[in-house]
């Protein structure tokens, strides 16, 4: 196929006619002659000649047919969640995604639009963001939510930085029950800002007058429900902010962090209609109290009126952001994850009041059924005796990694090995995607593995 492509020399430069680039040789010549030159290379004369037109060691072009074949070959080497029972969670969750989400978010009007700075030409995106902010506030029981951050980890790191700005303190306390990846990302964000990072035991968090915030996860990394009420109160006693990273699916059922007085609530929006996609793109959720609004990072859409009195939406409170406040901005964030804020808005609306509750209950009952079945197997136990939502830790009779290798031979994707934290611990996740047959297959397999 490559041989049939036109390769007409134009003014000393090999011409390649890509299906993504309309200009033909004739049109290029016409434009060049309007400029009074005969060679595209002349337009690059400002580049020092010794560095111009370097050798580029890239593969030759492929047709779409060939690309489909190459990527199909790569994709076939990956195990997809849907190809067999899967019980891996740990921050990325396999949930049902209604078909309308992909159909709507891939509409060119949404997916090929830019950030809605030009309000009159972006009312669709701006109204979606306003809907997103509304639904996230309702989900978390908070007063204001932004248009989204990169992911759950960066949302939480930005929340920790914001707590330092609000309290003018420089120490953040992280519960040891939050995701290790979240801890790593918070450390990376804090390393250059003279902010001390302290890991605390949430059953007895020693906070002091220098502590800007206590950072919690709800349910925590291991799936268990922390005593948010007591922890938020203890944090407030010290004049610190309570920052909670919260699984949005659990909000179909559990009391909200807002109800307990949390000051900043973040989360990963991935469970709200976004594929696991090997870790991204997701969307970071970020909500807080009205009083802290000017310390918030990222975009906000506000409702206003146009000059004829008609309702419309604009990006607002932009003076917080980098394009205006530059080195004094609340964050450097610019491009966020707007398309996936749209996906999660559609998800929350499609699930709706009843569906969100139903999904949460399906996850709850199925995971508790699985936990009870596994705990009844000889050699297996549940080392943590606390209420949980959809994830729980099982203590295995041998190395969880070894058990996982045997499970995958049976086409079952097991849980995460957390034995560094809990001896022989495996963190299992059960969602509405796991049928009773899946769970029973897992239990049967585990009973054979010692």
């Amino acid at each position, binding site marked *: 196929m490559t041989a049939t492509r036109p390769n007409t020399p134009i003014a000393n430069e090999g011409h390649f006619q890509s299906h993504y680039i309309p200009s033909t040789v004739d049109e290029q010549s016409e434009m060049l002659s309007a400029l009074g030159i005969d060679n595209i290379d002349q337009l690059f004369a400002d580049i020092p000649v010794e560095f111009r037109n370097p050798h580029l060691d890239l593969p030759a072009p492929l047709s779409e047919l060939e690309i489909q074949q190459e990527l199909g070959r790569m994709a076939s080497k990956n195990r997809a969640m849907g190809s067999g029972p899967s019980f891996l969670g740990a921050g990325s969750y396999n949930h049902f995604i209604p078909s309308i989400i992909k159909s709507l978010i891939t509409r060119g009007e949404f997916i090929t639009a830019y950030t809605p700075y030009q309000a009159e030409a972006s009312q669709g995106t701006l109204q979606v963001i306003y809907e997103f902010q509304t639904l996230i506030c309702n989900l978390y029981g908070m007063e204001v939510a932004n248009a989204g951050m990169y992911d759950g980890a960066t949302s939480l790191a930005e929340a920790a930085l914001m707590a330092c700005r609000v309290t003018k303190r420089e120490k953040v306390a992280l519960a040891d029950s939050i995701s290790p990846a979240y801890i790593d990302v918070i450390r990376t964000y804090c390393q250059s800002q003279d902010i001390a990072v302290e890991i605390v035991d949430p059953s007895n968090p020693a906070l002091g007058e220098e502590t800007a915030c206590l950072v919690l996860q709800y349910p925590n990394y291991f799936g268990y429900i922390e005593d948010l009420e007591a922890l938020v109160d203890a944090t407030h006693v010290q004049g610190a902010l309570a920052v909670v990273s919260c699984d949005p699916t659990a909000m179909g059922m559990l009391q909200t962090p807002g109800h307990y007085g949390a000051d900043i609530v973040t989360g990963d929006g991935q469970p709200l209609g976004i594929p696991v996609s090997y870790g991204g793109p997701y969307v970071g959720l970020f909500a807080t109290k009205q009083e802290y609004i*000017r310390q918030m990072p990222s975009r906000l859409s506000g409702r206003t009126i146009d000059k004829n009195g008609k309702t419309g939406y604009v990006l607002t409170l*932009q*003076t917080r952001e980098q394009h*205006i*406040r530059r080195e*004094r901005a609340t964050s450097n964030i610019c491009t966020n994850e707007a398309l996936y804020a749209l996906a999660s808005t559609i998800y929350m609306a499609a699930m709706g009041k009843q569906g969100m509750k139903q999904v949460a209950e399906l996850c709850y009952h199925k995971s508790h059924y699985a936990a009870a079945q596994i705990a009844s197997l000889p050699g297996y136990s549940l080392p943590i005796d606390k209420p949980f939502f959809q994830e729980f830790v099982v203590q295995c009779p041998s190395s969880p990694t070894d058990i996982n290798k045997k499970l995958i031979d049976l086409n079952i994707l097991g849980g995460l090995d957390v034995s560094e934290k809990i001896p022989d611990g495996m963190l299992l996740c059960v969602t509405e995607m796991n049928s009773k047959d899946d769970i029973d297959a897992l239990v049967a397999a585990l009973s054979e593995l010692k």
Partner: protein
Amino acid sequence: MSPDDRKYTEEHEWVMIDGSDDGTAIAGITEYAQDQLGDIVFFELPKIGDSVAHLGKMGEVESVKAVSDLFSPINGTVTEINEKLLDHPELVNEDPFGEGWIIKVAMADVTELDSLMSSQDYDTFIAGL
């Protein structure tokens, strides 16, 4: 023409002794400043009791698409802020020399005002910008 009952800085603040005769000065930003800023949407003001220094940053003023520092025209201690601006920042657009005043300051040394620009000097200054 800027009012001639007060003094001015090159940062476009005005200041005058208020009627109380106890060394309290009242300060704000000029007509020129509000016009340059456009629609003002937010003020961040010092707290009562804060010390302010001549040409030191005392707060911020935000318009829709700009943030500017507010500088104190004088040395002293803040005794009052214009609370109305917190909900109605547009007062400064509407009446920068009157209802849109920003802070009151107990001055350490009232003679400090003598070193600031007169209205005439200020008008000449902005005409050259």
